[in-house]
């Protein structure tokens, strides 16, 4: 009987189920406390607010699945956007403004990829741990971005605003569509494409992966490059929505994204993880802020609750690991 229950728990992914449970409880609670929370428009807003974290979490999941970490996510986002705006923008009529054309999108994506790949190259060739490399580039990338802007904020107009603000017919933002599309793409990569499958193998054990002929270097380049792309996409959403690049764009963003990835059930030890979980976790985090905001709660309580949710997840994870064998899910 207990064995049967354990088997069942093992198949339904205990973390995923618990996280969905948390989301349901939050939605019901806020739905009761605020008469506007469950409005269609608010649900659309909520998804839009979660898309920035969600998109970046997809790429970071790949990195964490290789047993790596990317502390530079926020700085990569900042620098990729600053590069895109300075390369694909022209000075506006007013000081501190830039007019952008459609080229900002390809340039931001290329810049994000390059910054992510640089992280991987440093890990491979300098033989350093991802923690150290991305700690260094956290400072390096931010420094370069601030150097380029002189530490000023920059108002941006033109094409760059279209993606973050665009809506498809039913009132859902482009970024939300992009988040689900990227999640589907990432899941397909992990399941059906060899380089994606290698990601989990490298995270499981780099040594045995290498002995089995897996090109670990290329896998790392892929994972960190992908994280760079998603950081740039998240940046395009954020900057497009705000309409400005401010110097502390992405400051401590990495903590929010890591929180979402870990909350979603991806193990920091690598080798297993869940893209779906990361998206749900990003939605949970935004639900907490959005709901508390709507019911007029003390703004300083938000982070206390977010921290407690993460704590709860960690404890739950430890409890689950004691009772179920390690499972590999995607």
């Amino acid at each position: 009987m207990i064995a049967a229950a354990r088997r069942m728990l093992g198949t339904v992914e205990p973390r995923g189920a618990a996280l969905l449970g948390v989301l349901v409880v939050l939605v019901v609670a806020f739905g009761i406390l605020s008469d506007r929370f469950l409005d269609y428009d608010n649900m659309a807003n909520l998804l839009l607010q979660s898309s920035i974290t969600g998109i970046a979490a997809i790429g970071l999941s790949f990195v964490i699945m290789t047993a790596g970490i990317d502390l530079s996510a926020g700085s990569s986002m900042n620098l990729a956007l600053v590069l895109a705006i300075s390369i694909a923008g022209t000075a506006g009529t007013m000081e501190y403004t830039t007019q952008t054309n459609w080229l900002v999108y390809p340039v931001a994506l290329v810049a994000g990829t390059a910054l992510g790949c640089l992280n991987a190259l440093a890990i491979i060739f300098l033989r350093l741990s991802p923690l150290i490399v991305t700690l260094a580039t956290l400072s390096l990338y931010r420094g370069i971005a601030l150097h380029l802007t002189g530490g000023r904020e920059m108002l941006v107009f033109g094409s760059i605003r279209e993606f973050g603000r665009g809506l498809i017919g039913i009132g859902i933002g482009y970024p939300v569509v992009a988040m689900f599309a990227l999640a589907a793409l990432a899941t397909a990569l992990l399941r059906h494409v060899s380089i994606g499958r290698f990601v989990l193998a490298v995270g499981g054990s780099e040594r045995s992966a290498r002995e089995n002929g897996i090109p670990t270097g290329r896998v790392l380049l892929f994972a960190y490059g992908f994280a760079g792309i998603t950081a740039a996409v998240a940046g395009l959403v954020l900057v497009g929505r705000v309409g400005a690049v401010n110097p502390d764009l992405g400051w401590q963003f990495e903590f929010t994204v890591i929180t979402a990835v870990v909350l979603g059930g991806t193990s920091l030890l690598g080798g297993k993880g869940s893209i779906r979980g990361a998206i749900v976790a990003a939605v949970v985090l935004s639900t907490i802020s959005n709901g508390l905001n709507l019911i007029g709660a003390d703004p300083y309580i938000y982070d206390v609750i977010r921290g407690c949710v993460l704590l709860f997840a960690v404890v739950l994870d430890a409890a689950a690991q004691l009772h179920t064998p390690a499972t590999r899910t995607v």
Partner: protein
Amino acid sequence: MKMKSGICAVSALAMAIFAGAYQAAAQEPVVIGVSFDKMESFREGEFNAIKAAAAAKGAKIIFQNAQEDAQRQASQIESMIAQGAKAIIAIPWDIEAAVNDANNARSAGVAYVTLDQAPADLKAVDFHVGGDPCADGTAAGEFFAKAAGDKPYKLLELQGGLSNDNGIRRSKCLDEVLAKHSNIVIVAQVPTDWKPEKALVGTENALQAHPDLNAIYSPWNIGLQGVFSVLEKAGKLKKVGERGHIDIVSIDGAPTGCQAVRDGLIDMDLATPVGDMAAAAVDAALAVATGGKPAAPTAFLPGTPYTPADVATQAPKVWGCAAG
């Protein structure tokens, strides 16, 4: 006659000493350490004004930016003193730590002047000059009270950083005015730490909870970008005077604020007199460094209000309009 020649001799001597001192000063310019809490377009406007004021007085500047770190600011000020600065002009990041920075500098015989952000204890510094956050908050409050008349009126209050004087009092003095009008309801107070992303999400959620919102208070110009983005999406970004316009008041007078007024998107902006502030700070710093005293221990300069109706005539008084 004798007395007269005596006076002549004394005054000649005094003039000679004065000229000598002036010459020495000309040879070796006084070094002023300028320590900022962060960098942004507003700070750049302030820095340019300080540079211009110092150049006019023949003083030399060492500049450092502490980028939102009280320990780094204390350390940078120590370095400036070690490099021979005779006066410090600081925009403090931590208004409490600024008191200690001031004590340290002054006990080393270095003048300490604060600009823009008032320290927790004004008596600790030689001179403070800043905008008048309370006058600006009050002016904004009175504008809203007038716009509301006696109708029910829902207002969203974005707040700046609450660890500094401008953030605290631009909100507090607004609240005091609005508290006298029972028809005005503040539907949400959103601390933003001066970050436009937080202004964006705060406005989005407030507008969701209160679709009949009448007014938004953005106590700094950069916050406006997030506000506009939300209003545009909701189809509520209307010009002043148009049907369905949401009343907006902001403070700073930065280039982006001036543009918003020129575009008719906001009802009023209060321009901080950056040029006057910088000139007063440099004058006081040089006066104290050369053994004198500032004319008054503090100066709070209220912002210059300007609106879409009078922006053309007021522009010369608004630093951000000149830059555009």
